[in-house]
């Protein structure tokens, strides 16, 4: 790689141990991918919760803080595994909660804004076309690349941290034009009326095309989609397909036309998704004992508008006795939704609203599942239906209204 004078100084240790280690990691990753240079980034977003980083990760952050490291660019944080108001009530481990508090302390010492949200793009920072970022959670990445036309790879926690410290990232993958061109075409012939339909579309396209280097180009979308619809599509594509970008002709900025989206690539394959295909996703889940005592609206966290709509659906109703319903959002949105009355309605119905977390990363989730006899998780998010599975849940995707109906009736449909 060609390194600037400043990058060489970092690599030589002239800017301290933390920056030397950060840029060494970035150089190794860059060389793996054949990157020619580093590019400056303007914003970083990192996943950093105790559930995923473990004691070794906590120690890494402690050491960085001790070394006096400091972010050169603004960095926000992703959802974490504790809402501290709920530790006891959820039966979570107080010792681990203490560690999570230390994670937050170390991050703040590094000048990280611990916003604890996976929807930073809806709430914290909206990048412009061509802007270089170092973001992770995958949902944030696919949003930035696809909807904004900004440029970022999937950046894991330590890698995003390194980018925030050095202010740059190696130029490979989604930073290069070649990787951003569409690789196959998806003709959509389904109405996609619910957020879960958009997630189902992402599953249908992502699962059989699992590759970071696949960039689907959607055509035939009948109307202008809303932000939450694109959010659920992107999160699902990233989760099932490990994809970092899609195009939607006439919607996303690098796809004014099919030809532009493909950028000279031959359309190797054309996939058609019909309404029957979407229905087949819903029909594919098995629930032999009709267990449905765990309903989740999370992963990604809910936007203000999702909270508003969900409050409308739960208004005047009550969660079925013995059923648990979790909703997650960011603390900032929760404060606003509380003022607007949405959270009051949800809580009056018996819904548990958790802040700054995502359900699939909650500490102690497997034990929580066993203690509460949650064998199945029902959700309108295709992403969480995929991501929660290591905790041995059987998972079922249903449309939003159906989820609410199941939550309030205790009857699986």
């Amino acid at each position, binding site marked *: 790689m060609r390194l600037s004078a400043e990058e060489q100084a970092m690599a030589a240790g002239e800017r301290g141990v933390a920056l030397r280690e950060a840029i060494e*990691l970035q150089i*190794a*990753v860059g*060389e*793996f*991918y*054949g990157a020619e240079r580093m590019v400056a980034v303007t914003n970083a977003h990192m*996943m*950093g919760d105790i559930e*995923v*980083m*473990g*004691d*070794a*990760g906590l120690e*890494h952050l402690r050491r960085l803080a001790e070394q006096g490291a400091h972010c050169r660019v603004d960095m926000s944080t*992703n959802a974490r595994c504790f809402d501290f108001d709920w530790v006891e009530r959820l039966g979570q481990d107080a010792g681990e909660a203490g560690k999570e508090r230390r994670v937050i302390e170390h991050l703040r010492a590094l000048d990280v804004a611990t916003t604890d949200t996976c929807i930073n793009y809806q709430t914290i920072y909206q990048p412009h076309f061509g802007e270089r970022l170092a973001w*992770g*959670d*995958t949902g944030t990445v696919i949003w930035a690349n696809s909807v904004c036309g900004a440029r970022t*790879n*999937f*950046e*894991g*926690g*330590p*890698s*995003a941290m390194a980018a925030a410290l050095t202010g740059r990232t190696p130029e*490979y*993958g989604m930073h290069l034009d070649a990787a951003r061109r569409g690789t196959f075409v998806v003709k959509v012939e389904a109405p996609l009326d619910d957020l879960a339909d958009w997630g189902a579309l992402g599953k249908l396209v992502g699962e059989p095309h*699992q*590759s*970071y*280097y696949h960039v689907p180009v959607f055509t035939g979308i009948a109307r202008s989609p809303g932000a939450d619809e694109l959010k659920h599509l992107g999160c699902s594509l*990233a*989760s*099932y397909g*490990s994809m*970092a970008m899609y195009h939607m002709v006439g919607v996303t900025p690098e796809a004014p036309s099919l030809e532009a989206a493909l950028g000279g690539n031959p359309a190797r394959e054309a996939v058609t998704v019909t309404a029957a295909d979407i229905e087949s996703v819903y029909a594919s889940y098995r629930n032999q004992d009709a267990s449905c005592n765990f309903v989740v609206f999370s992963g990604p966290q809910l936007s203000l508008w999702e909270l508003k709509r969900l409050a409308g659906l739960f208004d005047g109703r009550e969660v079925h006795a013995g059923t648990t319903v979790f909703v997650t959002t960011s603390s900032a949105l929760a404060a606003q939704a509380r003022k607007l009355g949405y959270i009051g309605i949800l809580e009056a119905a018996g819904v548990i609203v958790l802040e700054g977390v995502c359900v699939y990363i909650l500490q102690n989730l497997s034990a929580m599942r066993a203690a509460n006899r949650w064998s199945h998780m029902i959700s309108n998010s295709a992403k969480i239906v*995929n*991501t929660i*599975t*290591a905790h*041995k849940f*059987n998972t079922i995707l249903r449309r939003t209204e159906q989820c609410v109906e199941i939550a309030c009736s205790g009857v699986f449909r």
Partner: protein
Amino acid sequence: MNAPRLVIEVTRAWGPAVEGEAVVSAEGFSPRYDLDRWSGVITKRGHKLEGVSICDKILFFPTAKGGIAAGWAFHDIKHKGIGPKALCFGITNPVMVQGAIFAGMPITEGWSQDPLQCLRSGDWVRVDPAAKRIELLRRP
């Protein structure tokens, strides 16, 4: 040393050379979706390696699933003493690469022959990132 029984050339690679027992998967992998990160056992229901421990193994996966979590997860499981010796992917994603390098765990991407066709779980293999090759040394 005897000549390897088989050599797979890889496209990209990082890390020190290691030898170990192969685990060959027909299904992709995510340390967050598929793995119990406290035991090192793949626990996702229906995963083609469900019930298999990845501890000290050299893992062959056709694809990477997800996921940002791998950035921390390999480092975490290595320090818990349940990490694999190396990760070999057909197609991977940057987080697997970042996470493996952060953990000091050898990683490769791309292969001249599909391991599903030429390797078996239980084979003793050597991953040599500097030479961009994987060698089959012994078959039990």
